[in-house]
């Protein structure tokens, strides 16, 4: 959904441990554990700077990482949908 602004819980609400290239997240408000692959942890990291649209999130990520390929925007949108379904991000 173009133009939607997303927000993530503050850093202290989510404990993250990297295991073999994947990340396991413990979401304190829900008590749920999630296992996520890149770029999901990086999206959450980008959202820690504040609410943003998908395009802004991608721009923040590009400042930190070398993102390969032209489909990065699609990947970010798809992961945002999944993170929203998992309760790790929400729309403003």
């Amino acid at each position, binding site marked *: 959904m173009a133009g939607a602004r997303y927000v993530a819980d503050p850093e202290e609400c989510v*404990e993250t*441990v990297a*295991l*073999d290239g*994947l990340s*396991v997240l*413990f979401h*304190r408000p829900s008590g749920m*554990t999630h*296992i996520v692959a890149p770029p999901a942890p990086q999206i959450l990291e980008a959202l820690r700077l504040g609410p943003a649209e998908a395009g802004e999130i991608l721009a923040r990520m590009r400042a930190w990482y070398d993102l390969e390929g032209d489909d990065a925007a699609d990947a970010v949108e798809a992961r945002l949908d999944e993170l929203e379904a998992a309760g790790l991000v929400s729309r403003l």
Partner: protein
Amino acid sequence: MKHSLSLQIGPVAFRIGSAWPKPLAALADLYAGYPEPDGICDFTVRLEPETAWRRWFRPSVAIHGDYVLPDAAPMSLAHGLLAAEMGMNLQMALGQKRYLLLHAASVEKDGRALILTGESGAGKSTLAAMLGERGWRLMGDEFALLDLEDGRLRAFPRAVSLKNGAIKVMERTVPADRFGPLLEGTPKGAIRHLRPRADALAAMAEPARPALILFPRFGEAAEARAVGQAEVFMRLTQASTNYVSLGGAGFDALTGLVAACPAAAIDYPDAATAIATVDALWEQVG
């Protein structure tokens, strides 16, 4: 309750009460040599008639305690010993808050623990029992208790529940006085309990640092392959009965365990192959 028995098993004290003397007599025989609790018991297990009159007429044992599963099926009185064992499992699985409970067997050598976990029938009890007769200390065949404070494993050396083919295998090498009665026709087939060695009981209060996690699978061609940390984490959350209820403390304990321990899945066609594979992998982490 009319009859009762208290048992200390590792860090957990149980009081088992029963409407009938026979299951407790069998339990007292099987658990001969276990220490008595020196304080208040952590969990109570009650074996009671399903209804009052069924104490005498076709008696059937219902398992009760501090924590109850509404659909725990009553059992025949002939399987009263099994009911007591299941009752202890149930109380631990539902009520334990101090430890992350993994449905796993564990053995110890030189202060370091090997954790064996897998689905029912994977052979972890048998493998742990065999290792327990070959220079390892048996810490438990049913639950591995991961201390939330220090990440060490606590022993929970209940009697090993041997099933079907494993019974004969162990009867060949272990003295008869360490076995309970043969229970035929249980929901899991034939079951016979095996008391761990006296030295394992004497050391039940000694924790061990987890050093290796194995996922054994019986009945396949011999193979060992490394398992990635994220997969180990996922499998162990599934193998834990109280991971979700422990919240952040469970997450910290489990991620700590996974990050510190190498893990492998091992397939084995027979016990000798399994023992050789375990020895080889243990040497690698040494």
